[in-house]
């Protein structure tokens, strides 16, 4: 590894574009997304269903399912470009450098194998250890994620655990090889509301202890407010606004974000169910010209319907909205 510059981001995504070729033309599901994540940082990603959050995460770990493909841009991990690596090299990065936590713990684990087998298998894939050492490490990890009697529970099958416990196992699996980045795609959406906060707190605590940065995709603004350092708001395959969580929540800039933050966020508030903004996000084959948000935007003006706004620097972040071009800052 080259000596890292002190202020170099861990992950840089630059102009990422994900496409799906279809019979009726190419659908662009992620369109020129750029952001970075610093070492140890938690970046929250919010946006309505279909905004492109999951695909952005999948593109970073190199698991876009064909016929989908990365059609442009670059992904750099710790200074090394990873979006164009051969499958085998990218495989060694998955789990080792970038871990993943999926949405549904009930389906993330193979039902036919004990959780111990799945942990040991992952550890042995990435680390140079004996099976005994791997098992010892697996037990330690299970204890860390709060599973009691880990020595005994390690030999149990997934169906013998509750949903919340299974998500703890999934987190342990993601942390197996001490990755530098965890991509958590709605890790609590499928869980009972009463345990969502526990799991998020656990994820945050463990990632801090293991020195892992997190890309946390969620619908829950409350979770973002409590957990994230910065937040990216996605709309129709693009980033509408990105910045420090305090700024974005307290003083949102983009009209879409303003709509999302219609009231003070509390835990359990679900972006998907917000009715602050009239209309729905356009389908991929019907994204309007100009700003994708313009049909729903209360502030839309002529330029919005003709030209597409690119990300513009503001204070500590960026916003893609013509209102903030050429010093029109904050005029609303």
């Amino acid at each position, binding site marked *: 590894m080259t000596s890292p510059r002190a202020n170099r981001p861990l992950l840089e995504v630059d102009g990422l574009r994900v496409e799906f070729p279809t019979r009726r033309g190419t659908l662009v599901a992620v369109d020129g997304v750029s952001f970075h994540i610093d070492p140890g940082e938690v970046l929250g990603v919010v946006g309505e269903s279909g905004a492109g959050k999951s695909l952005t995460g999948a593109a970073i770990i190199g698991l876009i399912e064909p016929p989908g493909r990365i059609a442009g841009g670059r992904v750099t991990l710790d200074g090394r470009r990873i979006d164009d690596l051969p499958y085998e090299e990218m495989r060694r990065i998955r789990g080792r450098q970038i871990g993943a936590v999926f949405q549904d713990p009930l389906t993330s684990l193979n*039902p*036919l194998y004990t959780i111990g087998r799945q942990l040991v298998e992952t550890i042995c894939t990435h680390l140079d250890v004996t099976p005994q050492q791997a098992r010892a490490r697996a037990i330690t990890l299970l204890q860390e994620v709060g599973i009691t009697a880990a020595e005994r529970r390690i030999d149990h099958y997934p169906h013998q655990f509750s949903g919340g*416990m299974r998500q703890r196992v999934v987190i342990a699996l993601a942390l197996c090889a001490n990755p530098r980045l965890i991509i958590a795609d709605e890790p609590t959406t499928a869980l009972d509301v009463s345990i969502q906060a526990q799991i998020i707190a656990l994820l945050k605590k463990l990632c801090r202890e293991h020195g892992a940065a997190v890309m946390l995709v969620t619908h829950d603004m409350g979770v973002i407010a409590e957990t994230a350092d910065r937040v990216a708001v996605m709309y129709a395959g693009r980033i509408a606004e990105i910045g420090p969580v305090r700024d974005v929540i307290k003083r949102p800039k983009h009209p879409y974000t303003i709509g999302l933050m219609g009231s003070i966020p509390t835990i359990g508030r679900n972006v998907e169910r917000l009715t602050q903004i009239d209309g729905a996000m356009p389908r991929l084959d019907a994204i309007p010209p100009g700003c994708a948000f313009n049909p729903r935007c209360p502030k839309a003006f002529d330029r919005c319907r003709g030209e597409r706004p690119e990300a513009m620097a503001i204070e500590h972040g960026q916003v893609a909205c013509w209102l903030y071009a050429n010093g029109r800052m904050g005029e609303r």
Partner: protein
Amino acid sequence: MIAFIVRRLLQSVVVMLVVGFVAFSLFAYVGDPITIMLGQDFTELDAARIRRDLGLDQPFFVQFAHFVVNAVQGHFGISYRLARPVDQLIAERLPATLELSFVAASLALALGLPMGVYTGLHRDSWLSRVMLTLSLVGVSLPTFLIGILLILFFSVILGWLPSFGRGTTVHLGWWTTGFLTTSGLKALILPSITLGLFQMTLIMRLVRAEMLEVLRTDYVKFARARGLPNRAVHFGHALKNTLVPVITITGLQLGALIAFAIITETVFQWPGMGLLFIQSVSFADVPVMAAYLCLVAFFFVVINLIVDLLYYAVDPRLRIDRAVSGGHTV
């Protein structure tokens, strides 16, 4: 586990009793054994004596009980057609059918499984397309036609393989085997391909469909996201999850192979139970028919039992033990 086996055994007994009842009913409805045995000229006295000897004067359920007791011991009476004990006839024919079915099933599994995995993993390769197209042919051609075509090509035109019979067989106790001689092995080739082809294409298509299904699941995606090598993902995680349906179908198909060997045995004049059965049907040889029915049902029941036990071995979710799963939930 024990309770499970006992329950399945009891179910099996019930199934066998029902089949036994159907087989027994054949005696009552297909021809009158007295007329068949005595021919045209007999006195009423003769008839009554034989009726008493055979126990036919007794109440229906007593007769059925006799039938069951005898059947359990393997006694099905005397063949009307060949005038020999049915159990002997069956014992002579059983090895031929079982060896044929076994080879056909092994062939179907040994080729169908890897082909299914391959076509599932490499969906768009030309080889997959070739296999799928050929399998369509295999599914749509009737068995007897495949047999006749094989005979035409390999026996008549090329003269490589025999077109009928088992070749030279070797006696191992009461069992006769074709596995130990070259001519026996050669004789097995065409009939087992004929019998196994349909099963092979079925298994291949099933494994392929299951693989495609399993490869889409979250746990396979998550296994990839954990950086596991393709080999582990495909064979460790994906293939194992396709096994439950594959075991079911293969088990059922093995039973079907034994039952449907009738056609193949007829085409190849294979001296097995199927051929015996066909000949017995045209002579209304009820004891042989009844024995055949019971035996095939018995094989189905045994295979089903084994399939259930295999499920148990493969899928831990069936091995429910509540003592462990309780208590530790969030």
